[in-house]
């Protein structure tokens, strides 16, 4: 018979699970509270969620301190890995979620916020993402990913209108296909290495000197396809605009930040060792993918007529931009990735919130989407402050200094330059110019055209004090990003470098 296993509790490092557990507990308690007393106002749930997320963030930051002292920590039979990437990722995930959950505090009533399940699912999703980044075990990645994704599909659909159902179904179906890819890719990796922990896979492959290069490449192809979907790389990106359009601006903004950073961290763990071991194929493929993703999505964004769709394409392009960091694969570039994403979260938060506050419940006659450009026409004349804010976020997205994203941009481009990818740096720079066109388009509408009266009534109607505060936070974060860049850079470099990336 089996010998009883003796595992000391200390060696388990149960505490490494704490952040995720907090989120899960939060989710469960929301469910319980709803069961005990239904019909509570959404602000209650928002605050509860915020509280749990705050706790969550606190623990993560605490781990950060521990990490800086002791280095990476493994826990729970090596299932949970708390290294710099995981901590950085979790901070962005949790902090981003905190900012976005508050967007539920609209002045208008929306279906999903009247369901406590929404908040519960939201917290579950965060837990899922946290698991996903805080491990290098492919099973954990997979399960975490699915937990988060399933919750996300439901969140999208909860908006309860046909477009959001359509979005959810599309997202779900493609997600299922991507899950298949992921599973198959992992299977092949497992076949050739017998391991499902990424660092073990890496070491075994290295020890074999990549004897089964064909298998590796096929596995990488599948995994690339799976993460290409998650990170919306062309041609796996097709869900992005539709899903963004179908979901609320708040959720779309959220999707442009949090799920992607989780994806990036896993992609970083998965692909960088390959890039570093000189798998030329992967370098070339990534190179092409980065360039195509950036360029194609920029070009498509130009011809959009809806701001949210435009921002969707723009977020594809940003993802492509950041993917370059993984291709470059130096400490500097990985640092740049986090820096960029942190800055992007603020700007995107602002931009999507600006859309969110202008959301009307019903489409006007002749209006085909929630946020057509015409809606913003002449905004400077009717609502100057709103126009300036939106303009600010657009400029930041376009990478105009000294606004937030510019600093991320130069750091990534600088890392490309110092990583030897000069041409890539140029392409990235020129793509920013392409991107400027469509951001400018919105600015043109807002600042240079005459207002269209029937839209004027609906602007800012969804705003509430909390939403305005969030816009304010985003604006401050965007304008004064330069102050934060230096400390961010230092901290991130420490985390990234000490995690061995």
């Amino acid at each position, binding site marked *: 018979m089996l010998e009883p296993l003796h595992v000391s509790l200390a060696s388990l490092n149960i505490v490494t699970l704490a952040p995720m557990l907090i989120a899960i507990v939060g989710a469960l308690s929301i469910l319980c509270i709803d069961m005990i007393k239904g019909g509570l106002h959404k602000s209650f749930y928002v605050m509860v969620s915020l509280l749990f997320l705050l706790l969550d963030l606190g623990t993560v930051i605490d781990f950060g301190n521990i990490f800086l002292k002791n280095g990476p920590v493994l826990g729970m039979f090596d299932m949970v890995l708390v290294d710099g990437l995981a901590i950085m990722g979790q901070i962005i995930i949790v902090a981003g979620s905190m900012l976005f959950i508050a967007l539920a505090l609209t002045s208008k009533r929306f279906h999903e916020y009247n369901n406590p399940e929404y908040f519960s699912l939201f917290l579950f999703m965060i837990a899922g993402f946290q698991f996903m980044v805080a491990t290098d075990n*492919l*099973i954990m990645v*997979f*399960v975490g990913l*699915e937990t988060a994704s*399933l919750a996300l*599909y*439901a969140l999208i*659909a909860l908006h*309860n209108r*046909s*477009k959001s*159902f*359509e*979005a*959810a*179904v*599309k997202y*779900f*179906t493609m997600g*299922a*296909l991507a*899950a*298949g890819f992921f*599973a*198959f890719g*992992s*299977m*092949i990796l*497992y*076949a050739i290495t*017998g*391991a*499902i922990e990424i660092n073990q896979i890496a070491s075994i492959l290295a020890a074999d000197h990549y004897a089964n290069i064909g298998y590796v490449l096929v596995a990488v192809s599948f995994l690339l396809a799976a993460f290409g979907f998650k990170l919306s790389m062309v041609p796996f990106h097709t869900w992005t*605009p*539709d899903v963004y*359009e*179908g979901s609320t601006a708040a959720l779309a903004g959220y999707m442009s930040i949090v799920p992607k950073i989780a994806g990036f961290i896993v992609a970083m763990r998965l692909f960088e060792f390959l890039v570093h071991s000189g798998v030329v194929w992967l370098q070339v493929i990534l190179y092409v993918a980065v360039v195509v993703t950036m360029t194609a999505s920029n070009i498509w964004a130009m*011809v*959009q*007529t809806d701001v949210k*769709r435009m921002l969707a394409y723009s977020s594809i392009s940003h993802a492509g931009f950041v993917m370059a960091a993984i291709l470059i694969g130096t400490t500097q570039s990985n640092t740049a990735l986090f820096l960029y994403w942190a800055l992007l979260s603020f700007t995107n938060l602002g931009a999507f919130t600006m859309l969110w506050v202008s959301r009307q419940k019903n489409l006007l006659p002749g209006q085909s*989407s929630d946020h057509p450009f015409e809606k913003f026409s002449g905004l400077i004349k009717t609502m100057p402050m709103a126009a300036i804010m939106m303009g600010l976020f657009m400029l930041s997205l376009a990478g105009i200094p000294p606004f937030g994203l510019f600093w991320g941009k130069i750091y990534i481009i600088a890392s490309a330059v110092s990583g030897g990818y000069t041409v890539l740096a140029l392409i990235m720079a020129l793509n920013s110019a392409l991107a400027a066109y469509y951001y400018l388009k919105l600015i043109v509408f807002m600042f240079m055209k005459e207002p269209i009266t029937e839209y004027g009534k609906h602007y800012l109607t969804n705003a509430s004090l909390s939403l305005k505060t969030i816009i304010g936070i985003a604006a401050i974060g965007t304008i004064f990003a330069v102050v934060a860049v230096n400390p961010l850079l230092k901290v991130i470099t420490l985390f990234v470098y000490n995690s061995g990336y």
Partner: protein
Amino acid sequence: MEITLAHYLVLSGVLFAIGLIGVMRRKNLLMLFFATEILLNATNIGFAAIAHFHNDLTGQMFAFFIIAIAASEVAVGLGLLIVWYKRTGKIDLDIMTSMRG
């Protein structure tokens, strides 16, 4: 004639390909979901086979979790399908083109 790992892997690959074909050609959402199940099942065979030939349990575990994931997906997928059906009365994905461009 011995059945090797390659046999299983080829079988897994073929099934995966069938799944892919299904994913691509199905217009009925429900049947499209069937195809995604096939994809996951194909992978499961592979995992089990590799586990067997490596004499290692990890593969089986992976397959186990994949089954769990597949089950969850079905639940959510069907939920989505039901709301969609309630709204439109159809589960044909060709009518699902209100967003494009």
